[in-house]
Protein backbone atom coordinates (compact mmCIF):
# COMPACT_ATOMS: atom_id res chain seq x y z
CA UNK A 1 0.00 0.00 0.00
CA UNK A 2 1.29 3.44 -0.88
CA UNK A 3 2.26 5.71 1.97
CA UNK A 4 2.65 9.47 2.16
CA UNK A 5 4.59 11.85 4.34
CA UNK A 6 2.59 14.68 5.89
CA UNK A 7 3.91 18.15 5.06
CA UNK A 8 1.03 20.25 6.43
CA UNK A 9 -1.09 19.39 9.46
CA UNK A 10 -4.28 17.61 8.46
CA UNK A 11 -7.11 15.66 10.01
CA UNK A 12 -9.92 13.29 9.16
CA UNK A 13 -13.17 14.19 10.89
CA UNK A 14 -14.62 10.75 10.14
CA UNK A 15 -11.88 8.81 11.92
CA UNK A 16 -11.00 11.56 14.39
CA UNK A 17 -7.32 11.22 13.56
CA UNK A 18 -5.01 14.19 13.17
CA UNK A 19 -1.58 14.14 11.53
CA UNK A 20 1.37 16.46 11.99
CA UNK A 21 4.23 17.21 9.57
CA UNK A 22 6.53 14.23 9.42
CA UNK A 23 3.80 11.68 10.14
CA UNK A 24 3.09 8.91 7.65
CA UNK A 25 -0.38 8.28 6.29
CA UNK A 26 -1.45 5.24 4.31
CA UNK A 27 -3.55 5.31 1.17
CA UNK A 28 -6.60 4.24 3.13
CA UNK A 29 -6.36 6.92 5.79
CA UNK A 30 -8.05 9.44 3.50
CA UNK A 31 -10.24 9.14 0.39
CA UNK A 32 -8.30 8.76 -2.84
CA UNK A 33 -9.58 12.04 -4.28
CA UNK A 34 -8.48 13.89 -1.16
CA UNK A 35 -4.97 12.42 -1.41
CA UNK A 36 -4.84 13.39 -5.07
CA UNK A 37 -5.96 16.92 -4.17
CA UNK A 38 -3.41 17.21 -1.39
CA UNK A 39 -0.52 16.03 -3.56
CA UNK A 40 -1.38 18.66 -6.15
CA UNK A 41 -2.06 21.60 -3.82
CA UNK A 42 0.54 24.35 -3.63
CA UNK A 43 2.02 24.02 -1.07
CA UNK A 44 1.30 20.27 -1.01
CA UNK A 45 -0.18 18.73 2.10
CA UNK A 46 1.36 15.31 1.37
CA UNK A 47 4.25 13.87 -0.60
CA UNK A 48 4.80 10.29 -1.68
CA UNK A 49 6.90 8.60 0.99
CA UNK A 50 10.46 7.62 0.12
CA UNK A 51 10.73 3.99 -0.99
CA UNK A 52 13.70 3.37 1.27
CA UNK A 53 17.41 2.66 0.67
CA UNK A 54 18.53 0.38 -2.17
CA UNK A 55 20.15 -2.69 -0.49
CA UNK A 56 21.88 -3.79 -3.64
CA UNK A 57 21.40 -6.93 -5.67
CA UNK A 58 20.66 -10.30 -4.16
CA UNK A 59 22.17 -12.51 -6.75
CA UNK A 60 23.34 -15.90 -5.66
CA UNK A 61 26.37 -17.33 -7.36
CA UNK A 62 25.60 -20.77 -8.46
Amino acid at each position, binding site marked *: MKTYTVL*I*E*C*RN*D*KTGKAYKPGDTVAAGDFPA*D*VIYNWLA*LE*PPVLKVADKGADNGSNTIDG
Partner: protein
Amino acid sequence: MAVTPSTGKTHIRYCRFLVDGANLSGDMRTISSFGLSSDQADATGWSNSTRQWLNGWNTVLLDGLTAVFSNDAETTGPIDQGSHTELAALEDYNASVFIGIRAAPTIGNPTMSAVMTQNAYNVMGGGSDAVMVEASFMGAATSELSSNIWGVCLADGTALSATGSGGSVDNAAASTGGYIAFLHIPQTTGAIASNTWAFIIEHSANDSSWSTLASFTLDGSAINSERLEGSGTVNRYVRFTYTRTAGTARPWVSFIRKA
Protein backbone atom coordinates in the same frame (compact mmCIF):
# COMPACT_ATOMS: atom_id res chain seq x y z
CA MET B 1 -20.50 20.19 8.54
CA ALA B 2 -21.35 23.06 6.21
CA VAL B 3 -23.63 25.74 7.64
CA THR B 4 -26.74 26.96 5.87
CA PRO B 5 -26.54 30.72 6.35
CA SER B 6 -29.60 32.92 6.22
CA THR B 7 -30.01 35.02 3.08
CA GLY B 8 -32.14 37.98 2.04
CA LYS B 9 -32.83 41.43 3.42
CA THR B 10 -31.61 42.69 6.75
CA HIS B 11 -31.36 45.72 9.01
CA ILE B 12 -28.30 47.68 10.13
CA ARG B 13 -28.98 46.68 13.74
CA TYR B 14 -27.78 43.19 12.83
CA CYS B 15 -24.33 44.38 11.76
CA ARG B 16 -21.27 44.28 14.00
CA PHE B 17 -18.17 46.47 13.68
CA LEU B 18 -14.72 45.47 14.94
CA VAL B 19 -11.48 47.41 14.66
CA ASP B 20 -8.17 45.96 15.83
CA GLY B 21 -10.05 43.47 17.98
CA ALA B 22 -12.24 46.07 19.66
CA ASN B 23 -15.95 45.32 19.27
CA LEU B 24 -17.59 48.73 18.94
CA SER B 25 -21.03 47.37 18.12
CA GLY B 26 -22.51 48.48 21.44
CA ASP B 27 -21.87 52.14 20.54
CA MET B 28 -22.50 52.03 16.78
CA ARG B 29 -25.32 53.93 15.08
CA THR B 30 -24.60 54.20 11.36
CA ILE B 31 -22.14 53.54 8.58
CA SER B 32 -23.41 55.38 5.54
CA SER B 33 -21.33 53.35 3.08
CA PHE B 34 -18.64 50.70 3.15
CA GLY B 35 -17.08 48.94 0.20
CA LEU B 36 -15.35 49.85 -3.06
CA SER B 37 -15.69 52.76 -5.39
CA SER B 38 -13.80 53.38 -8.63
CA ASP B 39 -12.39 56.46 -10.23
CA GLN B 40 -14.10 56.95 -13.55
CA ALA B 41 -12.66 58.35 -16.73
CA ASP B 42 -14.96 59.71 -19.38
CA ALA B 43 -14.15 57.85 -22.62
CA THR B 44 -17.01 59.31 -24.61
CA GLY B 45 -16.36 60.25 -28.19
CA TRP B 46 -18.32 62.40 -30.60
CA SER B 47 -20.01 59.50 -32.35
CA ASN B 48 -21.18 57.79 -29.14
CA SER B 49 -24.88 58.19 -28.38
CA THR B 50 -24.41 57.74 -24.64
CA ARG B 51 -21.54 58.53 -22.31
CA GLN B 52 -18.95 55.80 -21.84
CA TRP B 53 -16.85 55.32 -18.76
CA LEU B 54 -13.66 53.51 -17.86
CA ASN B 55 -12.96 52.40 -14.30
CA GLY B 56 -9.68 53.62 -12.85
CA TRP B 57 -8.24 52.94 -9.44
CA ASN B 58 -10.49 51.47 -6.77
CA THR B 59 -10.89 53.09 -3.36
CA VAL B 60 -11.70 51.02 -0.31
CA LEU B 61 -13.83 53.14 1.96
CA LEU B 62 -15.87 53.08 5.12
CA ASP B 63 -17.65 56.38 5.38
CA GLY B 64 -20.16 58.15 7.54
CA LEU B 65 -19.56 56.16 10.73
CA THR B 66 -21.45 57.52 13.73
CA ALA B 67 -21.48 56.05 17.21
CA VAL B 68 -22.49 57.04 20.69
CA PHE B 69 -19.54 58.63 22.48
CA SER B 70 -18.05 56.34 25.13
CA ASN B 71 -14.70 56.49 26.85
CA ASP B 72 -15.03 53.09 28.54
CA ALA B 73 -11.49 51.79 28.93
CA GLU B 74 -10.32 48.25 28.39
CA THR B 75 -11.12 46.45 31.61
CA THR B 76 -10.76 42.97 33.02
CA GLY B 77 -13.82 42.07 31.03
CA PRO B 78 -16.32 41.61 29.62
CA ILE B 79 -16.82 45.33 28.85
CA ASP B 80 -15.46 46.34 25.46
CA GLN B 81 -13.63 49.63 25.17
CA GLY B 82 -15.72 52.58 24.03
CA SER B 83 -15.88 54.31 20.66
CA HIS B 84 -13.78 57.30 21.77
CA THR B 85 -11.19 55.11 23.44
CA GLU B 86 -10.64 53.13 20.25
CA LEU B 87 -11.18 55.68 17.47
CA ALA B 88 -9.71 58.94 18.77
CA ALA B 89 -6.30 58.23 17.24
CA LEU B 90 -5.93 58.83 13.49
CA GLU B 91 -4.12 55.62 12.57
CA ASP B 92 -4.46 52.41 10.56
CA TYR B 93 -6.90 49.73 11.61
CA ASN B 94 -7.84 46.21 10.67
CA ALA B 95 -11.54 46.96 10.24
CA SER B 96 -14.33 44.46 9.70
CA VAL B 97 -18.07 44.74 9.30
CA PHE B 98 -20.01 41.54 9.90
CA ILE B 99 -23.46 41.60 8.32
CA GLY B 100 -26.09 39.53 10.12
CA ILE B 101 -29.15 38.57 8.10
CA ARG B 102 -32.19 39.46 10.24
CA ALA B 103 -30.25 38.27 13.29
CA ALA B 104 -26.83 38.79 14.86
CA PRO B 105 -24.05 37.64 12.50
CA THR B 106 -23.37 33.93 12.31
CA ILE B 107 -20.93 31.71 10.46
CA GLY B 108 -21.48 32.03 6.72
CA ASN B 109 -22.88 35.57 6.81
CA PRO B 110 -21.25 38.25 4.62
CA THR B 111 -18.37 40.38 5.83
CA MET B 112 -16.35 43.35 4.62
CA SER B 113 -12.76 43.64 5.86
CA ALA B 114 -9.79 45.77 4.98
CA VAL B 115 -6.77 47.58 6.38
CA MET B 116 -8.00 51.14 6.66
CA THR B 117 -6.57 54.53 7.52
CA GLN B 118 -8.80 56.70 9.63
CA ASN B 119 -8.83 60.14 8.06
CA ALA B 120 -11.42 61.93 10.19
CA TYR B 121 -12.65 61.75 13.75
CA ASN B 122 -14.96 64.27 15.38
CA VAL B 123 -17.15 64.49 18.44
CA MET B 124 -20.49 66.24 18.21
CA GLY B 125 -23.70 66.75 20.09
CA GLY B 126 -26.57 69.09 20.61
CA GLY B 127 -30.09 69.48 21.85
CA SER B 128 -31.32 66.43 23.70
CA ASP B 129 -29.06 64.01 21.85
CA ALA B 130 -26.33 61.86 23.37
CA VAL B 131 -22.82 63.01 22.55
CA MET B 132 -21.84 61.28 19.33
CA VAL B 133 -18.66 60.55 17.41
CA GLU B 134 -18.23 60.45 13.67
CA ALA B 135 -15.36 58.96 11.71
CA SER B 136 -14.38 57.99 8.20
CA PHE B 137 -11.82 55.56 6.82
CA MET B 138 -10.14 54.85 3.52
CA GLY B 139 -7.87 52.09 2.30
CA ALA B 140 -4.47 52.26 3.98
CA ALA B 141 -1.23 52.97 2.14
CA THR B 142 0.85 50.91 4.55
CA SER B 143 0.55 47.73 2.51
CA GLU B 144 -0.41 46.70 -0.97
CA LEU B 145 -4.12 47.02 -0.42
CA SER B 146 -6.34 44.46 -2.06
CA SER B 147 -9.65 45.24 -3.77
CA ASN B 148 -10.85 41.92 -2.40
CA ILE B 149 -12.80 43.02 0.66
CA TRP B 150 -15.96 40.94 0.63
CA GLY B 151 -15.88 37.63 2.46
CA VAL B 152 -17.72 35.39 4.88
CA CYS B 153 -17.81 35.00 8.62
CA LEU B 154 -16.03 31.95 10.01
CA ALA B 155 -16.31 32.96 13.68
CA ASP B 156 -19.02 35.21 15.15
CA GLY B 157 -17.78 36.19 18.60
CA THR B 158 -19.33 33.18 20.30
CA ALA B 159 -17.56 32.49 23.58
CA LEU B 160 -15.25 29.49 23.28
CA SER B 161 -14.31 27.29 26.21
CA ALA B 162 -12.98 24.10 24.58
CA THR B 163 -11.06 22.90 21.55
CA GLY B 164 -13.16 22.55 18.42
CA SER B 165 -14.07 23.82 14.97
CA GLY B 166 -16.70 26.19 13.76
CA GLY B 167 -19.16 25.21 11.08
CA SER B 168 -17.74 25.04 7.58
CA VAL B 169 -18.69 27.39 4.77
CA ASP B 170 -19.32 25.87 1.34
CA ASN B 171 -18.08 27.96 -1.61
CA ALA B 172 -19.58 25.44 -4.08
CA ALA B 173 -16.17 25.11 -5.71
CA ALA B 174 -12.48 25.62 -5.01
CA SER B 175 -10.90 28.98 -5.85
CA THR B 176 -7.41 29.64 -7.12
CA GLY B 177 -6.70 33.30 -6.33
CA GLY B 178 -5.60 32.89 -2.73
CA TYR B 179 -7.18 34.36 0.37
CA ILE B 180 -7.17 37.12 2.97
CA ALA B 181 -8.24 36.40 6.54
CA PHE B 182 -8.85 38.75 9.47
CA LEU B 183 -8.98 37.60 13.09
CA HIS B 184 -10.28 39.91 15.83
CA ILE B 185 -9.74 39.07 19.49
CA PRO B 186 -12.03 41.23 21.65
CA GLN B 187 -12.29 41.42 25.41
CA THR B 188 -13.34 38.29 27.29
CA THR B 189 -14.85 37.68 30.70
CA GLY B 190 -12.15 37.64 33.31
CA ALA B 191 -8.46 38.27 32.87
CA ILE B 192 -7.76 38.10 29.14
CA ALA B 193 -4.01 37.68 29.76
CA SER B 194 -4.56 34.14 31.04
CA ASN B 195 -6.21 32.97 27.81
CA THR B 196 -4.07 30.73 25.58
CA TRP B 197 -5.35 29.40 22.25
CA ALA B 198 -4.14 28.36 18.83
CA PHE B 199 -6.30 29.59 15.93
CA ILE B 200 -6.12 28.21 12.39
CA ILE B 201 -8.16 28.18 9.21
CA GLU B 202 -8.62 24.82 7.52
CA HIS B 203 -9.87 23.93 4.05
CA SER B 204 -11.27 20.77 2.55
CA ALA B 205 -12.43 19.33 -0.75
CA ASN B 206 -15.05 17.06 0.84
CA ASP B 207 -16.02 18.71 4.19
CA SER B 208 -14.48 15.87 6.24
CA SER B 209 -10.73 15.69 5.41
CA TRP B 210 -9.10 18.96 6.44
CA SER B 211 -5.68 20.54 6.06
CA THR B 212 -4.34 23.76 7.53
CA LEU B 213 -4.62 26.74 5.21
CA ALA B 214 -3.49 29.51 7.54
CA SER B 215 -2.23 29.79 11.11
CA PHE B 216 -2.75 32.92 13.17
CA THR B 217 -0.08 33.91 15.67
CA LEU B 218 -2.48 35.62 18.10
CA ASP B 219 -3.21 33.37 21.10
CA GLY B 220 -6.22 35.16 22.63
CA SER B 221 -4.27 36.70 25.51
CA ALA B 222 -4.74 40.35 24.43
CA ILE B 223 -7.20 42.49 22.52
CA ASN B 224 -5.76 42.54 19.04
CA SER B 225 -6.31 41.68 15.39
CA GLU B 226 -4.34 39.91 12.70
CA ARG B 227 -4.46 39.83 8.94
CA LEU B 228 -3.15 36.91 6.89
CA GLU B 229 -2.86 36.68 3.13
CA GLY B 230 -1.91 33.71 0.98
CA SER B 231 -1.83 32.64 -2.63
CA GLY B 232 -2.95 29.58 -4.53
CA THR B 233 -5.86 27.20 -4.26
CA VAL B 234 -8.42 27.35 -1.51
CA ASN B 235 -10.54 24.20 -1.47
CA ARG B 236 -14.31 24.29 -1.56
CA TYR B 237 -14.94 24.25 2.20
CA VAL B 238 -13.28 26.44 4.84
CA ARG B 239 -13.66 26.56 8.62
CA PHE B 240 -12.08 28.09 11.72
CA THR B 241 -10.48 25.65 14.18
CA TYR B 242 -9.35 26.53 17.70
CA THR B 243 -7.23 24.62 20.20
CA ARG B 244 -7.53 25.56 23.85
CA THR B 245 -4.67 25.53 26.31
CA ALA B 246 -6.23 27.88 28.87
CA GLY B 247 -9.09 30.31 29.37
CA THR B 248 -11.75 31.54 26.99
CA ALA B 249 -11.95 33.52 23.74
CA ARG B 250 -14.57 35.32 21.63
CA PRO B 251 -12.93 35.48 18.19
CA TRP B 252 -14.41 37.01 15.09
CA VAL B 253 -13.05 35.83 11.73
CA SER B 254 -13.63 37.25 8.27
CA PHE B 255 -12.42 35.09 5.34
CA ILE B 256 -12.04 36.46 1.82
CA ARG B 257 -11.37 34.42 -1.33
CA LYS B 258 -9.35 36.57 -3.68
CA ALA B 259 -10.55 36.78 -7.24
